[in-house]
């Protein structure tokens, strides 16, 4: 029962983030970039500016709504890249084995040895700050766990009757992988991706803090939070609301991922994301 509740809470929070992102153009009272009146800077929350205004005089509430779009983009796109890389490498390595498997394994070990934030930092330094670079950096850093799961799932699925049957029937390798193996490991991959969305949003915030995230004027939560650092004593609301937004959305992704994992495979509960 408890997992049910967690899952629902996670789903609700995630749905809220998605809704905020989609509806932002209609429900946000102000433009997140252009409605900046320096005369209104650093106003505390009131009836007009629900979450107050930032140093540039922009409505924090509107910026948080629009920020949901960026956080979702970061979460989803980076995880799609992660999953594609991880599944492709893991599945082919598990299926074909041999030198390719050794190569993929070696690569995975290397990736696991570099802390992901540091690798992302290096990639961001090369590509320069900005949303596309961030998507690439985060997409390139966290695929190793997905790859491992895909590989081990493939190894165990390969020996299953229906895969062997398909092999006997002379199906091509790629066809077997995509029709027989891939659908059967989507569960754990989906769980990894959901949990990965949370860490991607956190990494975005961390990279922004290090000056390598998405840069203004895009209202990304991470950069809002970073900007707010200087203002924490004068205008704490500028720091509190983006922080809460990150916290609640990541909490949503994490609870959703936990819930998915529990419902897919109760025995996976012990493992870490």
């Amino acid at each position: 029962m408890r997992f049910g509740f967690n899952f629902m809470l996670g789903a609700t929070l995630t749905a809220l983030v998605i809704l905020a992102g989609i509806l932002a153009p209609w429900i946000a009272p102000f433009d997140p970039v252009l409605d900046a009146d320096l005369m209104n800077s650093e106003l505390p929350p009131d009836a007009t500016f629900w979450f107050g205004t930032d140093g540039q005089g922009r409505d924090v509430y509107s910026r948080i709504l629009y920020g949901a779009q960026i956080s979702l983009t970061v979460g989803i796109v980076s995880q799609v890249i992660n999953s594609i890389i991880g599944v492709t490498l893991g599945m082919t390595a598990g299926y074909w084995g041999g030198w390719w498997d050794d190569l993929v394994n070696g690569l995975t070990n290397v990736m696991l040895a570099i802390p992901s934030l540091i690798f992302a930092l290096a990639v961001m330094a090369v590509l320069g700050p900005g949303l596309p670079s961030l998507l690439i950096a985060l997409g390139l850093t966290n695929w190793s766990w997905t790859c491992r799961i895909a590989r081990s799932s493939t190894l165990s699925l390969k020996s299953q009757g229906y895969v062997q049957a398909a092999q006997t029937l002379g199906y091509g390798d790629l066809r077997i992988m995509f029709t027989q193996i891939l659908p059967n490991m989507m569960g754990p991959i989906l769980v990894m991706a959901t949990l990965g969305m949370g860490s991607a949003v956190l990494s975005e915030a961390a990279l922004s803090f290090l000056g390598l995230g998405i840069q203004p004027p895009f209202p990304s939560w991470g950069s809002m939070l970073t900007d707010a650092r200087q203002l924490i004593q004068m205008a704490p609301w500028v720091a509190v609301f983006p922080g809460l937004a990150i916290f609640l959305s990541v909490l949503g992704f994490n609870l959703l991922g936990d819930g998915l994992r529990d419902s897919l495979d109760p025995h996976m509960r012990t493992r870490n994301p």
Partner: protein
Amino acid sequence: MLKRLSLAAMLSLGVASAALAEGERYGGTLVFTAPYGSSFATLDIQASPNTQEEFITQAIHRALYSWDSIDNKPVLELATSADVSDDGTTYTYHLRQNAVFHNGKPLTADDIIYSYKRIASPKNAFPGASFVANIKGAEDFIAGKAEDISGLKKIDDHTLEITFTGPINPGFPLMQNTTAIYPSNIEDESTFAKNPVGLGPFVFREHVPGSQVVVEKFDKYYEEGKPYLDRVNIVLMAEDAARDVAFRNKEIDVSVLGPTQYQAYQGEDALKDHLLEVAEVYTRNIGFNPAFEPFKDKRVRQAINHAINAPLIIERLVKNKAYPASGWLPISSPAFDKDKAPYDYNPEKAKALLAEAGYADGFEFEVTASPNESWGVPIVEAILPMLKKVNITVKPKPVESSALGDAVTSNNFQAFIWSNLSGPDPLNAMRCYYSKTQQSACNYTSYSNPEFDKLYEAAQQERDPAKQNDLLRQANNIVQDDAPVWFFNYNKAVMAYQPWVHGLVPNANELAVQPYEEIWIDDTAPASRK
């Protein structure tokens, strides 16, 4: 206008306090802060171009010239007098008889020749090489084509003749920290990086990496009766908020303030009377690349200057920690034109100018910007809605600080926002708009105006400072009219100090750098400082 008056008043106050200073107290410890990084790169300050290391230099080292913060000009430091030849290229320096290095060696002409050669040595690639490059023969030496610098000639132990390549004022280059004089009798040069030896009022005692450098009074310092302090702790403290807390807790004696803190300190009775302000010699600007079609038209560049409400940005975003720029040369520059009005905020005029130039429907451009809060992305964010009102779309192109320099010097930008040195030497500052200056050197906006060039060349040849300044003032006004940049502001540096600290000076080059030998602390200091 008011701000300028208050500056003038403050400057005179500085003079007054220096003149009236009485009751100086000897002894005690000053806890100074080095706010520009979390470490000292090296103690071999000839090797470091960073401001951060200047805090050590000021205590330990001396160069041939030094900066007089009160009179705003370079003055002789290690020489008591200098004779100048008629053509203004050869200087004969009569060195101080009583200057002694911390290792006991008296200063001689050999030390200066040794130091300048070390700085210019092609093996070292030191940043100070460009400052000694004005000495005749230095270019060949730097390029490795000569064994000696021909322009350096020792007459006797305390007389040195230096021949320069042209009639320049050698004070500006040879007062730089990177041209500090080292003793010539140290065998192993690598010890300079660990155990610096200089001519300054304080002796190096200890360096705790990542934490602080401690220096102690040098008994044989050449200036009579100085220094006052027994000890200076130069504490590394890069974070604004950290300095804020430490200053309020009276753990440090001075703190350089950022905009937010400046605003906060002004509102607090206990703090507001102990703020030292100065207009520093940096001009913040957005440079336009004339290779980008719309920026070819002077009217477009002027329109942008009219469309942005710079005073509002300075007030709200920079918290008044800046002076609106009315041209390239800053307020503290001797060639500053106090009668020249800045571009007024006038969106209608901007629209009209744009329409005249054929951009009534506007255009779009990118501003390459670093994350800096005073001259980076946040400022671009603020001008974005303002320019939108005249149909110009601005897109910030964020880069890291280290990539900004690369992008600008390789001319790879439509526009950039930066803070650039515009003093203290007005001739050197205006060099950046001389058409013969390389784009990559400092003519970032590839500025070229024959009228300007004529004035500049005349100023180069002019040896009467007043006339020279007059020429430069005219040149500056031409630049202002041509608007190769958006003139944003001149930095106002603010330093908060504890009430027991005396002798600080408004150093327009870098307020955070102070003459430690002039500073003394009074009886009200906490026990740990006495």
